[in-house]
């Protein structure tokens, strides 16, 4: 390849789009490194503390799209205290000062302030796309700044963020000249919006393909919006409540018939089940259906709806669908690839729940299934073994039995054999979450068979250090390991310290790791940041090495200790 001029090589690189491949290409030789770095437009940073914005900017002057992730995954479940970190502000400030022509910013689990959003909106004239997932720290004022100042905005996608709502005017901040919107998702905002502004905005956005509304948008507005935008491909309904005999509802039924491009449907944050029949005409063509935020729909309503969805590829649903309902899914949705079943009431056993039966039915009926998230009340080894026989294509398998250490209710055995069967038969498995009663044996299986595993989540499992060691030794592709409440300690932690340089991060909380072991690790591995999060008072009194640490989070980094840590974090 040295015979070709740089421009030719660069042109070849244009066809290489995956981050992994691009990274590999840059390692071949100095010349390729240089060409790759100048031509790179999209960068993904899985841990915002692994590198600094300055070094990013220095290496990739042509950067247009940046994806950043902040807090560790277990922050989703309140295991990481408030203001631990993950601030996007230094990134936006640094980018704003540079010559980078940022067009797209995607953030996950980061702290975003209104000031950051305002700076972002004013610093990049070609800014096109903002996607915020599970972020916090901003209000609708920040959203208003984006709306007002990003003249060529195509995408504003707010997913599951905690946003302080200052009521209403942010939508009116889109100037009349803004006609470029392709995707608008504000389902997570809780407050009122100006409905007339919304209608006008949709009316002047001919390219709008994706629209997800929040719960204050009523059905009659929905009807008007669909009249304006029958070309929608992705629709998130806010409030879906009306009297089926009303005129508005008839109009809605009529206009829905025209929306034959809709492939993805979600929302129903408020819903009257008697109105669902209007949706049936578009069910035929749906590939993605997300009813996981629609507790107003009972099992029967869900079943009736799903019966019309023959082309469904991804289904997110609440467990009130029940095992029988999952049976209907299994016999209807033969193209199903991804299923997520969420608990409608996490703390109550109740009737509205699914068991191993539903999962077995799905595995038997949906041969293309490759991704599963399943919250249930019980699971048996026999069921998992059957699932493993039926499904060998799993990439993601996440099973959460609501009772943390529940054994197989039929045999009273741990679920080692069941999960063992899953990893044995699903050779492409990249992500696995375990639950139920589990011994070291399951980790032996995982180490032996899960050779492509990249992310593993463990809770209340195992008997000894051996468990963790099986995983660390066997899973060569492991990138993220998160463990809580397991009897894994110093022996396991320190056995192969070099391993952590091949991984993005390790989280261990309520395990048996001592402060001394963490110190040893930090000392031997300068390329790792070892953080101790300790909210109890003990650490203040003594730094006794024998003390068990509450929470430890370690990650590889090129830039040493971070400067923004809160008081309760100890950086070793």
């Amino acid at each position, binding site marked *: 390849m040295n015979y070709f001029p740089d421009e030719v090589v660069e042109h070849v690189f244009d066809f290489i789009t995956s981050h992994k491949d691009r990274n590999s290409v840059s390692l071949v030789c100095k010349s390729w490194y240089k060409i790759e770095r100048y031509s790179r437009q999209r960068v993904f940073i899985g841990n915002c503390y692994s590198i600094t914005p300055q070094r990013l900017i220095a290496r990739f002057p042509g950067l247009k799209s940046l994806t950043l992730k902040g807090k560790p995954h277990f922050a989703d*479940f309140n295991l990481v205290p408030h203001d631990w970190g993950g601030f996007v502000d230094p990134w936006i400030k640094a980018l704003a000062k540079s010559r980078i022509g940022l067009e797209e910013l995607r953030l996950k689990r980061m702290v975003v302030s209104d000031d950051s959003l305002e700076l972002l909106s004013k610093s990049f004239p070609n800014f096109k796309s903002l996607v915020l997932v599970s972020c916090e720290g901003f209000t609708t004022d920040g959203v208003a700044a984006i709306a007002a100042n990003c003249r060529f905005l195509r995408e504003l996608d707010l997913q599951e963020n905690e946003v302080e709502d200052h009521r209403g005017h942010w939508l009116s901040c889109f100037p009349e000249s803004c006609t470029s919107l392709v995707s608008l998702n504000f389902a997570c905002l809780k407050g009122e919006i100006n409905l007339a502004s919304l209608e006008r905005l949709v009316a002047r956005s001919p390219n709008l393909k994706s629209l997800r509304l929040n719960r204050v948008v009523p059905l009659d507005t929905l009807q008007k919006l669909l009249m304006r935008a029958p070309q929608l491909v992705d629709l998130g309904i806010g409030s879906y*409540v009306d009297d089926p005999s009303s005129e508005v509802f008839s109009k809605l039924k009529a206009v829905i018939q025209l929306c034959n491009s809709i492939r993805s449907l979600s929302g129903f944050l408020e819903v009257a089940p008697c109105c669902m029949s209007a949706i049936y005409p578009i069910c035929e063509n749906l590939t993605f259906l997300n009813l996981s*935020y629609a507790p107003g729909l009972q099992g029967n309503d869900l079943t009736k709806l799903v019966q019309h969805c023959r082309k469904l590829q991804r289904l997110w649903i609440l467990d009130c669908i029940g095992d029988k309902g999952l049976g209907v899914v299994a016999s209807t949705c033969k193209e199903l690839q991804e299923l997520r079943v969420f608990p409608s009431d996490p703390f109550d056993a109740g009737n509205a729940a699914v068991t191993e039966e539903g999962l077995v039915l799905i595995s038997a009926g949906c041969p293309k299934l490759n991704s599963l998230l399943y919250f249930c009340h019980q699971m048996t080894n026999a069921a998992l073994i059957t699932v493993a026989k039926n499904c060998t294509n799993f990439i993601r398998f996440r099973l959460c039995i609501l009772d943390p250490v529940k054994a197989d209710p039929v045999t009273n055995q741990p679920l080692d054999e069941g999960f063992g069967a899953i990893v044995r038969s699903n050779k492409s498995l990249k992500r696995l979450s375990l639950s139920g009663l589990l011994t070291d044996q399951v980790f032996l299986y995982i180490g032996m068979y899960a050779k492509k595993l990249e992310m593993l989540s463990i*809770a209340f499992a195992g008997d000894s250090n051996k468990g963790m060691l099986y995983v660390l030794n066997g899973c060569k592709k492991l990138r993220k390991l998160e463990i809580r409440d397991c009897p894994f300690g110093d022996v396991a932690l320190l056995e192969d310290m070099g391993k952590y340089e091949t991984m993005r991060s390790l989280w261990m909380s309520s395990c048996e790791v001592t402060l001394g072991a963490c110190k040893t690790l930090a000392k031997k591995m300068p390329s790792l940041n070892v953080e101790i999060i300790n909210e109890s008072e003990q650490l203040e009194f003594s730094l006794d090495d024998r*003390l068990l640490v509450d929470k430890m989070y370690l990650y590889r980094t090129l830039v040493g200790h971070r400067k923004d840590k809160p008081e309760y974090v100890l950086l070793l």
Partner: protein
Amino acid sequence: MVFEKDLNLDATELRLGLPGSSEESLRISNKRALPDMNDDSGVAAAKKCDQETAPPTKAQVVGWPPIRSYRKNSLQTKKTEAETGGMYVKVSMDGAPYLRKIDLKVYKGYPELFKALEDMFKFKVGKYSEREGYNGSEFVPTYEDKDGDWMLVGDVPWEMFINACKRLRIVRGSEARGLGCVV
């Protein structure tokens, strides 16, 4: 590390249990006993102490089940709204000196609603039939819907009714002719 053998943690440790054993062995507490190398019984005592403090109920295990807070809060909000949001409507009765207000969300269906109205206004609702309306009573329950029309209570399914009902009026029989009341 030598710790584990010396302290015989296996014997004293809170295990995740043999198959079939209860879930007491959940260790949630932030408090950690300092392992004391010289005192086996001390450790045993400390661990026992941990065990004797009643293990928190499942609802108190931090971060379990592993559901995003956003999702948990969403479902919680809906429950709370359902519980405290309320769907209050005015209820008037012909001849009564003042109106009352009731929360329609409290009732599961028409029977509960009628019982509450009967208690509140001291009257009896007649027997409902689709053909004849309310039979055998001087009083007929009616409601004003979103279009402003006055309708007979009981014709449509309960869910539909509570979404459409703006106010209630208990009409005296003599005025209720034409609403299917047989006096």
